[in-house]
C-alpha cells in the first residue's frame, strides 16, 4: 500500500513539476547553444535579457513550487476535503504520513538532480562537441580527487545528514499543520504560529540540556575534547554523530505528534 500511495504522490507532484523541469532544461540547452554560436553582443540586447530572466524565473519557480507542493500535498490531501478519501483507505495513519514524507523527499532529491541536469545540459550546449569528452574526463578526475581527499564515506555521510535535516524541517511543518488543524477556524494561522512555537520549544529544550550539561560538567568535557581534536577526523565524526542523533530525535518527536493528532484527534471540517 505504501508504494501505491507514493506512486500517487509522484503523479500529483509530477503533473506540475515535470513541465517545469522540461522547460528549465530545454531553455538551458538553448542558452548553451546561444553562448556557443551567437556573438557576445546578442546577450546585451532585450531578447538576451528576456531569455536570461525567463530562465531565472523558471529556476526559482521550480524551487518554490517544489517547496509549496511538499506542504500543500500534506495539507490538501490529508487535512482538507480529500482527507475524507485518504483516511477512508484501508491503511494506517502512519502509512499516510510516511507516504507524504517519502514523496516530498523523492521530489526534493529529483529537484537536486534536475538542477545538476540543467547545468550539464547548458554546458553541453555551450561547448563544442569534441570538447565534451575532455570535459567529462576532467569532471571525473575532479570527483576522484574529491573522493580521495574526503573519502566516499564522507560524501555519503554528508548526503545522509542533508536528507535528515530536510526530513526534520518537513516533519516540523507536518506537526505544525496537524497542530493548527486542531483549531476550528483560522487553521493556516494556527499552523504558522505552531511552527514558530515549536521553534521556541526547541530553543528552550536546547537551553535546558545545555544547562544540565554545564552543571554536570559534561559540556566542559566536550569542549576540552573538541579543542584537543579541533579539525581532526574524530572532531568531525563527533559533529556528524551529534547532528544525526539530534535529527533522529526530532524526526521521531514530530512524527509522533503528527500521528497522534491525525489518528486520535482528527478534525476534518
Amino acid at each position, binding site marked *: 500500500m505504501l508504494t501505491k500511495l507514493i506512486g500517487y504522490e509522484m503523479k500529483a507532484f509530477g503533473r506540475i513539476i515535470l513541465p517545469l523541469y522540461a522547460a528549465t532544461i530545454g531553455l538551458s540547452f538553448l542558452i548553451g547553444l546561444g553562448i556557443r554560436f551567437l556573438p557576445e553582443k546578442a546577450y546585451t540586447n532585450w531578447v538576451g535579457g528576456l531569455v536570461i530572466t525567463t530562465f531565472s524565473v523558471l529556476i526559482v519557480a521550480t524551487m518554490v513550487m517544489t517547496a509549496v507542493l511538499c506542504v500543500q500535498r500534506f495539507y490538501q490531501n490529508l487535512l482538507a476535503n*480529500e482527507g475524507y*478519501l485518504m483516511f477512508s483507505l484501508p491503511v494506517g495513519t502512519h502509512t499516510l504520513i510516511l507516504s507524504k514524507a517519502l514523496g516530498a523527499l523523492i521530489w526534493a532529491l529529483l529537484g537536486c538532480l534536475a538542477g545538476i541536469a540543467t547545468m550539464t545540459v547548458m554546458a553541453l550546449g555551450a561547448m563544442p562537441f569534441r570538447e565534451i569528452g575532455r570535459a567529462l574526463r576532467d569532471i571525473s578526475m575532479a570527483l576522484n580527487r574529491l573522493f580521495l581527499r574526503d573519502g566516499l564515506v564522507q560524501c555519503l555521510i554528508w548526503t545522509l545528514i542533508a536528507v535528515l535535516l530536510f526530513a526534520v524541517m518537513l516533519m516540523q511543518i507536518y506537526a505544525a499543520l496537524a497542530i493548527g488543524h486542531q483549531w476550528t477556524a483560522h487553521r493556516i494561522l494556527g499552523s504558522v504560529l505552531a511552527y514558530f512555537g515549536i521553534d521556541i520549544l526547541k530553543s528552550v529544550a536546547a537551553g535546558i540540556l545545555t544547562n544540565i550539561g554545564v552543571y554536570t560538567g559534561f559540556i566542559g568535557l566536550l569542549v576540552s575534547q573538541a579543542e584537543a581534536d579541533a579539525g581532526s577526523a574524530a572532531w568531525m565524526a563527533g559533529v556528524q554523530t551529534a547532528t544525526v542523533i539530534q535529527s533522529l530525535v526530532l524526526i521521531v518527536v514530530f512524527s509522533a505528534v503528527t500521528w497522534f493528532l491525525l489518528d486520535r484527534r482528527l478534525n476534518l471540517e
Partner: protein
Amino acid sequence: MAVLECIDLEKWYGNVKALNGVNLALEPGRIVGLVGPNGSGKTTLIKLAQHLLTPTHGQILIGGMEPGAETKEIVSYLPDRDFLPGWMNVESLLDFYSDFYPDFDAGRAGQMLDALQIDPHRVFKKLSKGTREKVQLIMTMSRRASVYLLDEPIAGVDPAARDYILRTIISNYSENGLVLLSTHLITDVEPVLDEVVFLKQGHVELHENADALRERTGMSVDGYFREVFRC
C-alpha cells in the same frame, strides 16, 4: 449478529456533547435511515464508524472490530461533500479505487458511468456538481462492502438525480451489506428504508422497522418524524 454496534457511545466536542450514550445494533442486509434534525449527531456517528473521529466514551464496533485500517476494508463511505481529488479524471479515479480496495468492481462502475453517459476522460473538478455527486456515489456503491455509510447522499441534487441515486443504492448494495443512510429528506428515502433510527440531541430516540412504525403510528415515517421533532 450486528455488523455495526454502538455501546454507550459518547462524543464531546469541547464542552458540547454531540452523542450522548448511544446504544445501537444494526444487522446486515438492511437499509437503515439515520434521521434527525441538524446537529442531532448523524454525521458524528458516521465519522466515528469510519475512524474519522474517536469516541470520548463507549465503543463503536464494525464487524466486531474497533474502527481502523481493518474495518475500512469492509466499509464503503460516502461523505457529505466533494472528497475525490479534483485533478484526477474519472478513469484515474477508477484505477485509484481498484488499487486500494480489493472489493471494488471496476466493471460495475464502468457500466454505471456508461449508463449516465459520463465521459471517463473528464477531469473530476470540471464536472457539474450533480455529476460529481453521481461519480462519488458510483465509486462508493461499486464496492462489495459489508457496510455502506452514506452521509446525506441526496442533499445537494435535483429530484431526478435523487431517484437515480436511490435506485443505485437499492440495486447495488451487497445482499449481506448494511446501508446506513443519513438524511433529513425523509420523504425521498422513505420508500427504500427497512429500518429507521431517530437521533435527537445525540441519543437514539427511536429504532424501529419502517413498516412496523407506519403500522403502529398510522403515519408515514416522515409524518412521524415531524411529530417527534416539532419545533
